[in-house]
Structures are given as structure tokens and as C-alpha cells.
């Protein structure tokens, strides 16, 4: 190293490199791969949404808004769009509500808090497709859930076979797996709230509820924003659980935007139509993220 030492002002006319002037060459590899995998295909996808492309042929005819009109006319598609929004909303409310309660629990002085944190987060690290198969068995007509219901003298439920129940069963699986994830994010936020503020409120005679409502709750907006963002976007993209447990059935009753895109493109050869659905999904994600972002910006102010 010592022999490498040069004087800080080297001779020569070219401008010397300075720490604040890092070369843009550093971002070239990342930008090239990212443009190839994400940006260019997305631009193409958005364009092909206005064509009748079947995925194989070289010809793509421009059809204007026809694919979008077809989405509106096609009950399975509108059904899937509403169902996707329903899943996103249900998962967001239930998962974050329960996750917050669990975070309060493991942020208390209970002796098992360390172990419980680790256990409650554990389902979030395994593959959603694997937990989906586990639940497919739990939900089966002769499975353990119905065995328990029968033992309690309750009627059996056709968890995945009944069209009006199946979508809720899917929400249960998602919440079960990711409630610990919401908990961990709320917990990190709770631990960042300065203790002295809470203690000062306690000294001032504020009860547990008032301490929570006036001191803790206002500090929670960062984790609330992140959790809402994650579960709304995750819910809108729901695919694995549906594909593994019901394949979108019975009779399309659990199809989401993502499973319909997959079917349109790879089963029915209607790639243009599938991409129109994908563009609808993109708009939904963008609109909901935009709302979240502006809410965050307002809080920041």
C-alpha cells in the first residue's frame, strides 16, 4: 500500500477523480440488466395491451381499446378485478389489525416475548406455495378443520369448494402467513419511540389507554404506511395461494387479476387481453401507491 502512495495533486492535465464526482459507469451493469428485465418488457407489455397478439405469431394488430372493452363486458374479468380489490382490502385490514395487537403483546414485559417474536414471524419466511398446500389439506372436506367443527357439533364447511367461501379461505391463508411480518414492522416502530416520553406521560398520571392514544399512536405513522403499502400491493398481486389451492376455481370463483393474466396468456393464447389486465393491475398499484405516498408526504409536513 505504502508504495502505491501518490501525491494528492498529480501532474497531468486531465481532471482528477474526486469522491463527490463518482463516474456514472458504476451504474451501467445494474441499469442494463434492470432495463432488459423490467423497463423494456413493461413498455412492450403496455403497448401490446392494445393489440390482438396471441404470444406466438409475429403479427400483432392494433385493436385500440378493444381488450379493455372486453374486460368490462366479461363478467369473469370484472369479477376477478373486484375480487382482487376485496382480497387486498381484507388482508390489509385483518393482517395489520392483528399484527398490531401482536406487536403490542411482544413489546410488553412478558417473559416469553423474545421466543414469541421469532415464532410468530417464522411462517413469513417459507414459500407461499408450500403453506398453500398445507392449508389445502387443512381445508379439505374431511380435513382437520372440519373434524374440529364436527366435534364441536357445528356444520361442515366446504372451505375451497363453495364459491362464496373460497375467497375468504384464501384470505385466511395469506393473513396466517404474513401477520408476523406486519407485527415485526410495527414492533420496530414501537421500539423506536423514546421511553422517556412514555414515562413522562406516566408520571403525569396518564393511564395506559391515554398513554397509548396520545403518545404512542401518533408516532406509528411510518410503520402504518409501510405495512399498508406492503399488504395492499401484495394483496393486489395475489397469485401463489390461489394457483396452488384452487387454480382459480370453483368455476372462476377465486380467480384474481394475476391468475387470469396467466390463464389468458398461457392457456387461451389471448396475450393482448392478458396484458390489458396487467395494465389495469399496474394502474391500480400506481393509484393506491400514489394515495399512500401523498398521505405520507402530508404526515411528513
Amino acid at each position, binding site marked *: 500500500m505504502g508504495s502505491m502512495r501518490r501525491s*494528492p495533486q498529480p501532474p497531468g492535465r486531465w481532471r482528477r*477523480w*474526486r*469522491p*463527490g*464526482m*463518482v463516474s*456514472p459507469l*458504476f*451504474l451501467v*451493469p*445494474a*441499469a442494463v*440488466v434492470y432495463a*432488459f*428485465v*423490467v*423497463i*423494456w*418488457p413493461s413498455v412492450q*407489455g*403496455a403497448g401490446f395491451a392494445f393489440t390482438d397478439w396471441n404470444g406466438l405469431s409475429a403479427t400483432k394488430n392494433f385493436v385500440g381499446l378493444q381488450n379493455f372493452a372486453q374486460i368490462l363486458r366479461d363478467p369473469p374479468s370484472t369479477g376477478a378485478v373486484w375480487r382482487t380489490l376485496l382480497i387486498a382490502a381484507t388482508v390489509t385490514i385483518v393482517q395489520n389489525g392483528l399484527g398490531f395487537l*401482536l406487536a403490542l*403483546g411482544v413489546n*410488553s*414485559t*412478558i417473559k*416469553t*416475548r423474545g421466543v*414469541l*417474536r*421469532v*415464532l*410468530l414471524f*417464522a411462517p*413469513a*419466511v*417459507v*414459500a*407461499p*406455495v408450500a403453506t398453500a398446500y*398445507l392449508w389445502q*389439506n387443512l381445508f379439505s372436506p374431511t380435513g*382437520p378443520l372440519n373434524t374440529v367443527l364436527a366435534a364441536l357439533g357445528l356444520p361442515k364447511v366446504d372451505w375451497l369448494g363453495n364459491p362464496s367461501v373460497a375467497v375468504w379461505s384464501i384470505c385466511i391463508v395469506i393473513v396466517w402467513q404474513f401477520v*408476523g411480518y406486519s407485527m*415485526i*414492522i410495527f414492533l*420496530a416502530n414501537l421500539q423506536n419511540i423514546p421511553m422517556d416520553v*412514555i414515562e413522562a406521560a406516566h408520571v403525569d398520571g396518564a393511564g395506559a389507554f391515554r*398513554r397509548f392514544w396520545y403518545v404512542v399512536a401518533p408516532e406509528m405513522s411510518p410503520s402504518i404506511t409501510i405495512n399498508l403499502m406492503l399488504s395492499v400491493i401484495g394483496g393486489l398481486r395475489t*397469485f401463489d395461494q390461489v394457483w*396452488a389451492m384452487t387454480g382459480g376455481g370453483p368455476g372462476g370463483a377465486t380467480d384474481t*387479476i*394475476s391468475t387470469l393474466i396467466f390463464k389468458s*396468456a398461457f392457456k387461451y393464447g389471448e396475450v393482448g387481453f392478458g*396484458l390489458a389486465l*396487467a*395494465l389495469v393491475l*399496474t394502474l391500480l*398499484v400506481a393509484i393506491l401507491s400514489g394515495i399512500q405516498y401523498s398521505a405520507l408526504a402530508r404526515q411528513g409536513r
Partner: protein
Amino acid sequence: MIKRYRPTTLLLEIVMIAATIVLFVPVYWLVNLALRKPNDPAPPLALPTQPTLQNFANAWVEGNLANASVNSAVVTVVSVLLIVTMSSMAAYPLARVARRWSSLAFGFFMAGLLLPLQLGMIPLYSTMRDLGLLGSVWGLVLFYVGLQMPFAVFLYTSFLRSVPIEYEEAALLDGAGPLKTFFHVVFPLVRSATGTVVITNVISVWNDFFTPLLYLSGSGQQTLTVSLYSFVNQYSSDWNLVFAGLVISMAPILILYFFLQKTVIKGFASGLKG
């Protein structure tokens, strides 16, 4: 919040333990069934009378899980190494240069956080097909590196912005060039961001199902999640075998998690705070 153990704390403790047990009933069922012989006379929710490991051996062989585990491991390790290298390098000018091109490039990367992969999936599929990358784990690696770039770049950039520039100036005085400064000074300084990037990406790449289903289906090369998918479709009546397969697929990531629990939890919690 106030450090004392009271009767209400005990009550809370009981409620929390009960909630955790309820959450873990499905896991009990998973392990119970995986250890059972198909004709075990014990009632469904009771422990098996003669626990066996035979299901694991059968699932391992019949699901071709050895091959799939190797593929999953290769894809995960190579993808994560490339993601870490490329995204940290990209973050260096983004965090340090206060020029217009730098903020434009940052916006370019951040656009990817909003684009759902469903939009580009099908055009990319046909491009990969034309390039002969379908059915190859390398096509999958290329995909993950591109897909995960925005979030990793975002993490590294926001982390590096909070690191003082003085270390780099000191390296300059020592005569180090930009590459040397990056690898010997900057990269070690951002190691906690590296921890987050590694952990979140190992988990999401290892667990991904949609992409390998699309890119590897019909080929001899499968990752664990896709092997499970075809395995379950093939043996759907034999749940003991299927559950043993599920346990095998979950085990590596769970073992990793229980060994590195603090780091993993911190990685997820801090990474998302940005």
C-alpha cells in the same frame, strides 16, 4: 411499558402464548402427517402411533428434490451475489453525485418499484424464448437480478447517503482510485445494508414460484417450489408423502432463519424503513 410484572402482565402472557399456539396448529398438523404411516390407526389430530421417516426418503427420491434443491441453491446464491455487487455499485454514484443525471437515474430505478412484474412478464418470456434462455437456470438468474435491482438500489442509496464522505476523501489522499475506493472503503461501510439485501433476497428468490413455473416448466431443471407443484399434482392423494416434501422444502430456509433470527428480523424491519 413500565418494567414490572403484574397480574395483567401474566394475563397478557397467557393470551400471547395461546395466540402463538393457535397460529402453530397448522404446523403441528404438517409435521404430524409427514411422520405418519398412511395406514396409521391414530385419530387424525393425535400423534402418530409409529412415527416414521420413510415419507421423507420417498418424497426426496420421487419428487426429485435433490436435483431441485441444488437448482434452487444455485439460483439463489448466484442471483444474490450479483444483486449485491451490481446494486451497491449503482448506488455509489447515485448517493454521491448531486447532478441532474444522478437524480434522473435514481428515478429510473425507482420506477421499477411501481411496476408489477405481470406487465413485463409475457414480453420478457418471448424475448427469453427467442434468446434460448427458457428452461435454463441462468435465464432465471438474469430475471431475478433485474427484478430485484430497484429495491436493492434504493436500500443501498439511502443507506450510503447517511455515511460520511470523509472516509472516501481519506482513501483519495492514499492514492486509491474509484474502484479501489468502492471495494475497500465504501462497500465495507454499507455492510448493514448488505445484510438486509442478502436476507430479503435470499428469502424471496428461494420461495418464488410464479417465475420458475413460467420459465422452467416442461424442462428437466426445476426449482424446489415448482418441483413441489408437480409433485403435489402427481401424488395429491398421498398427503403423508406430500407433507414430507413440504417439510423438506421449508427446512433450509427455516434453519437459516432460526440460526440468524435477530439479523433476519432486523433485516426485514429495517430494510422496509428505507
